[in-house]
Structure formats: C-alpha cells, structure tokens
C-alpha cells in the first residue's frame, strides 16, 4: 500500500470512531426520546436542547465511575471483555460503503467480512458473562451463545439469496443491482428471515434474552460497572447501526431511491428508519421465552430459509433477465 492509501485508511478509521460515538450518542438519545413519546411522556428534556446533552453527561459520568473487578472473576477475561465487543464492532464497520466509491475499502467479499465480524459480538457477550463468575451473567452468557449459533444460519442463508441474485458479495455491486427493483420485492421471504435473524443477532427486543432485565437483573453485563458498561452500550449501538445498514443495503436498495437520483442521504434515511423500527419493537413487544426463541430459529426460520435459497436459485437460473 502506498502512503496515500495509509493516510486514507487512517483518516477513515478515525472517521469510523467518530461515527460510532455519534451513533451511540444520537441512537441512545433518539431511543429514549422515541420510547418516551410512545409511553406518553417526554423522555430526556432538561439537559441541553430536548435532552441532547443527556448522553454526553452519561458518558462523562461513566468514565469517572469506579471500575469494580469482582474477586471471583477471571481478571484477564474480565478486562478483555470490552475489547471483545468493541473491536469487532469497529472492524465490521470498516467494510461499509456509504456511496459508490465512498468507503474505507470496497472489498469484493465485503458482505462476508461484515458477517464475520458482526457475529463475533455475541461471542464477546459470552466471554463477558463467563468471566464475571456470577450466576446471572453465566446464564446470560449461555443465552447469548445459544442465540448466536441459532440465528446465524438463517441470517447467512437469507443473505445468500441476495448474493445469488446479485452474483457478487461486493456491497457496491449488490446495491447497484437494486437500481431498478429492490430485493425486498424480489425476495420478501428472505427479507423477513433476515430481519428477524438480524434483530436476534443484535440482541434487540423481543430477542433481548441475554440481558433479560426481569429475569437476570442485567444479564451478562450485571457485573460491569462504569466505562465497561459504557463499552458494551457502545458496541451494541454500533452493531445496531451495522445491522440496520445491512438491511438497508441488502434489501432496501441502499442509496437508490425510485424516481430520484442515488444519494448517500437515502441510505442514511433507511438506516435511521430501520433503527427506529427496532426501537419501536422495543417499546411494544415483550420478550420471547428462551425455548420458543430456539424453536423459532431451528424449526421455522432454518427450513424456510433453505426453501427460500433453493427457490431463489431456481428463479435466478430460470429467469436470468428478471432475477
């Protein structure tokens, strides 16, 4: 790599860090505000303009809170835990393309790269839960791991439908292939499966079992205080961003918009819409039980995903002009 490319890469990485910070601050603020209004109340209001300074205040407080390491915890794993969630979250974002040619690197296997890092995150949750040596965190960790292994396969199979249709794993190719018709209309089944599975991979309601508050106090992060808890929040919201990006890019046409010129603005709008959707779920739905969570994945999503991929492949071969 040349020096220019190094500078390009470093600038992008710094930009991604800033993006993560902005996503977390605005995401949490928007979530609290949105759910607040769902619940007939106002949400953060008094600190900054309509509570915009609420999250910076939370961050400042978390940095200055004591960092407790329980005696029974595995000291190394306990300290490594935040690394295990923050690093994959940042690394997964390195492959995002925000417009044709506007991204850190347009990898020809970008989709696979994102999946590879995205699915490391629940592993980090499992490590966190295991390291704390508390019963609640242990159950939370087991649930996180079980959820990861159950929902990864339907997610990958649903995304494969898009790959077959686009004939590429490069994000730019996939999005450009949707300049005409979005894949949500060509593969509605794949979209449904992918949406559910991504929701589960992101640990969002109704799949927030690893941190089920009413059962496990705070799940895998029960023992995390101060900034360690902040790191987990950071990772969760950046993964929420990446997941929303994936849904927008694979099925909702990315930066394309019918009758209007392609623009990164549309992509951003779609991502915000997807994130808001998950917050809406969070405000409305209760939590699934752990066994119905597992049977939903193995007994419904997986067979349907297999049928879906074979059907999409057959259509792609039979109607090459349309699919």
């Amino acid at each position: 790599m040349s020096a220019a490319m190094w500078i390009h890469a470093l600038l992008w990485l710094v930009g991604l860090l800033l993006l993560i910070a902005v996503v977390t601050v605005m995401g949490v603020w928007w979530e609290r505000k949105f759910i607040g209004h769902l619940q007939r109340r106002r949400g953060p209001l008094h600190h900054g303009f309509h509570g915009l300074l609420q999250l910076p205040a939370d961050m400042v407080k978390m940095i200055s809170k004591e960092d407790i390491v329980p005696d029974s915890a595995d000291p190394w794993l306990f300290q490594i835990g935040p690394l295990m969630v923050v690093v994959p979250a940042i690394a997964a974002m390195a492959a995002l393309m925000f417009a044709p040619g506007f991204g850190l690197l347009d990898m020809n296997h970008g989709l696979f790269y994102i999946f590879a890092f995205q699915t490391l995150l629940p592993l980090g949750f499992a490590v966190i839960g295991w390291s704390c040596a508390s019963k609640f965190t242990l159950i939370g960790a087991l649930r996180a791991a079980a959820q990861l292994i159950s929902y990864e396969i339907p997610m990958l199979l649903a995304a494969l439908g898009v790959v077959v249709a686009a004939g590429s794993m490069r994000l730019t190719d996939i999005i450009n292939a949707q300049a005409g018709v979005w894949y949500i209309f060509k593969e509605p089944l794949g979209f449904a499966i992918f949406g559910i599975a991504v929701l589960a991979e992101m640990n969002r309601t109704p799949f927030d079992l690893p941190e089920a508050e009413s059962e496990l106090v705070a799940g895998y992060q029960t023992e995390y205080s101060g900034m360690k808890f902040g790191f987990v929040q950071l990772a969760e919201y950046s993964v929420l961003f990446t997941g929303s990006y994936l849904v927008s890019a694979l099925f909702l046409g990315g930066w394309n918009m019918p009758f209007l010129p392609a623009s990164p603005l549309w992509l951003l709008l779609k991502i915000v819409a997807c994130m808001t959707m998950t917050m809406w779920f969070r405000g409305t739905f209760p939590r699934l039980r752990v066994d119905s969570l597992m049977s939903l994945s193995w007994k419904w999503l997986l067979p349907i995903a297999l049928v879906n991929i074979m059907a999409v492949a057959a259509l792609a071969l039979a109607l090459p002009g349309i699919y």
Partner: protein
Amino acid sequence: MYADSVLVAALACVTGVLFVLALYGVVALLAPKRPNPLKNATYECGHEPVGVPRAPFRVQYYAIAIVFLIFDVETAFLYPWGLVLRQIGWAGYGEMAIFVAILVVGLVYAWRKGVLRWV
C-alpha cells in the same frame, strides 16, 4: 485486493484496541478505586454468593452446538456455490439440491430426537 482487506481488518482491530486502551487509561486516571470485600463479592441480589457460579450446565446444550456446526459448514459451502451459480447452471443446482436434501434429513432426525429442545 485481498491483501488490502486483510490489512484493513488488522488496522481496524488495532484502532479498536487502541481506542479501548486509551479510554481505560482515562478511567484509571479519573475513577476512584476503593475496593472492599463486600464490593468485590459477586452480585447476588444482596446475598452472600452461594456455591460455585461456574456450575456445569446441561448436556443438551452441546447437542445444539453440534447441529450448529453442521449447518454452519453447509452455509460456508453454499456461499461459493451461490456466487458461481450462473456459470455452473442447472447441474450445479441439482448437486446442491442433493446436498441440502441430505442435510434436511439430518435436521429432521435431530428434530425427532429432541436435540432442538432447549433445556
């Protein structure tokens, strides 16, 4: 191109590690550190922790992990197939259909054996 992406991944990981470590440093500077035996005890709803927290868990858990392994490998096979599907045509489709059918038989078997039932 491939080497570039590996390099980008490595760079991103290093950035992430540095970011976390930098914040650890700030925390070490700013946060008070006053451990005491009660504080360092494991949280258990206000009780003294009882028993071993890392108790062995149910054996059914592993069965699901094994089923996952099988299907994860299958997915890894499916991706290259999906990429080149238009070149290999219906012959490739038929071969993969047989492969998927065998796996579905396996899934049905595991299902009937009750492996997919969560503990």
